[in-house]
């Protein structure tokens, strides 16, 4: 007699564990695999007052607080456009709302949500990034980016990281103010749970400007990786030419990281800071072999314009790290060629992007037919263990690559 059980429709109120129930079945097969999710997100607007109450400056703290008196309590000081957040396709993909009912007073709601997702996917460690703050690089007031970035970092240190050791963070760098970035590195480089630092890529600042050299020197001295986390911005002059969210979203993430990576290479930053580890986050991978070939071709003809380079641009790119999501797999031959081009076996880091609409699961890596079992384990977690110094439980220790000399402490 087969047991018949009815399943509920998934809504914005559904429990994350119900939404990810199929993923949990897959995760049972990965019990001996070390998995690090390099890019998952908190939804900071759900607890925005916890961030803004930590703003140092009393004027800006008051300004943010005053928004709570307005109808709907909009997230004061943020520069997002709420009416153009089309990620859920108008109700088609509900989980991004993270409206789970949370029972219990001892646990911060965000921690419980993150734990539910991690446990469902079989993830050992996750790195928490913000969500609407990814657009702060476009804020016209640099001092607001500094204030909110610092407040978010303090929230991470005080609320999130101490309560769940499986959650790690790459601290927010207010890149529109180079000196303030150095302050962030000096304050948080050795803080528990901090494994690196982040620039949100959606901005127009040239990463090669002399004003950033102190920051890169501080990061290199601290032995902490620097992540460029991309995002989208429909208000960008180029993106204003496309009329659908799909078009803008497909291009915008790659667009910003392509510009920053190009400036990074052509201006010889890897030669100036050879031990600084760079991670390119949330742009997928398909753009990378394009840029490798394009830059190599032009460099070989115009090397006089990039005098610091001693190798082809693609060789520097192969030393960098990339996160996997959103992994493009509609043409697996291209996916395979891309992974060979970027040396994915040692340089690619699994990322889910949960709870966002285009998230990936560990099966995005385990289902790839051209990867060896060792390559899958490396991408899912062992590359991250090497880069960040995570301790791998013995039963998940298949093979760990040798530690990076610059990071061995």
């Amino acid at each position, binding site marked *: 007699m*087969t047991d*018949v059980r*009815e399943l509920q429709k*998934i809504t914005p109120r559904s429990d994350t564990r119900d*939404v990810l*129930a199929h993923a949990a079945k897959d995760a049972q097969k990965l019990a001996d695999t070390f998995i690090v999710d390099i890019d998952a997100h908190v939804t900071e607007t759900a607890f925005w007052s916890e961030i803004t109450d930590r703003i140092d400056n009393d004027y800006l703290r008051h300004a943010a607080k005053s928004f709570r008196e307005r109808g709907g309590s909009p997230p004061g000081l943020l520069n997002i456009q709420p009416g153009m957040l089309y990620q859920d396709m108008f109700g088609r993909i509900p989980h991004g709302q993270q409206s789970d009912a949370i029972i219990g007073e001892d646990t911060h709601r965000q921690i419980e949500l993150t734990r539910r997702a991690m446990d469902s996917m079989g993830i050992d460690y996750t790195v928490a990034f913000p969500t609407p703050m990814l657009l702060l690089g476009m804020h016209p007031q640099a001092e607001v980016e500094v204030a909110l970035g610092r407040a978010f970092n303090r929230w991470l240190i005080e609320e999130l990281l101490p309560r769940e050791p499986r959650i790690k963070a790459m601290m927010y760098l207010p890149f529109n103010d180079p000196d303030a970035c150095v302050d962030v590195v000096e304050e948080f480089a050795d803080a528990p749970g901090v494994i690196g630092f982040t620039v949100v890529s959606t901005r127009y600042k040239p990463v090669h400007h002399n004003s950033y050299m102190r920051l890169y020197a501080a990061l290199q001295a601290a032995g902490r990786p620097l992540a460029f986390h991309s995002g989208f911005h429909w208000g960008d002059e180029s993106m204003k030419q496309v009329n659908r969210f799909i078009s803008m979203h497909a291009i915008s993430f790659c667009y910003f990281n392509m510009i920053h990576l190009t400036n990074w290479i052509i201006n010889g930053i890897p030669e100036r800071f050879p031990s600084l580890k760079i991670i390119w986050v949330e742009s997928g991978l398909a753009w990378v072999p394009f840029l490798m070939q394009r830059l190599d071709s032009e460099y070989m003809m115009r090397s006089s314009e990039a005098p610091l380079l001693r190798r082809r641009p693609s060789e520097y790119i192969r030393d960098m790290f990339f996160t996997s999501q959103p992994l493009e797999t509609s043409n697996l031959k291209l996916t395979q060629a891309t992974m060979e081009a970027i040396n994915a076996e040692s340089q690619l880091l699994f990322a889910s992007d949960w709870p966002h609409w285009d998230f990936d699961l560990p099966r995005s890596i385990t289902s790839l037919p051209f990867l060896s079992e060792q390559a899958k384990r490396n991408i899912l977690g062992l590359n991250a263990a090497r880069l960040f110094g995570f301790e791998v439980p013995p039963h998940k220790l298949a093979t760990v690559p040798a530690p990076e000399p610059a990071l061995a402490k």
Partner: protein
Amino acid sequence: MAEIMVGNATDIADGDHRIFALGEIEVGVFRLGDRFVAYENRCPHHGGPVCQGRLFNRVEEIIMPDQTSRGMRFGRDRHVVCPWHGYEFDLETGRHPGDARMRLRPIPVRISGDALYIEAP
């Protein structure tokens, strides 16, 4: 294969659907007027719980005889949308509107009296 009664046909309103776990397999049953169709609750994209998603009418673009666009509107075809990533499938065919090779696995469903039977694979 075993035929399993999962409930009464009258418990599913026209245009609505219900989802059942039958041991290891999960099945979505959809009512289209007087007819019922059923599909496995597993998205061919990444294995998501497609039948637990919402139903939408297919979106169409209004193209005039001179090939100019007059925007978008809902058509008549009913789609189920996977709640994981938004993959849509026509309820009549089980196929993705842009790639017919991407399709849901159909499950035989039968009405006897008011009883709704699923042929579990």
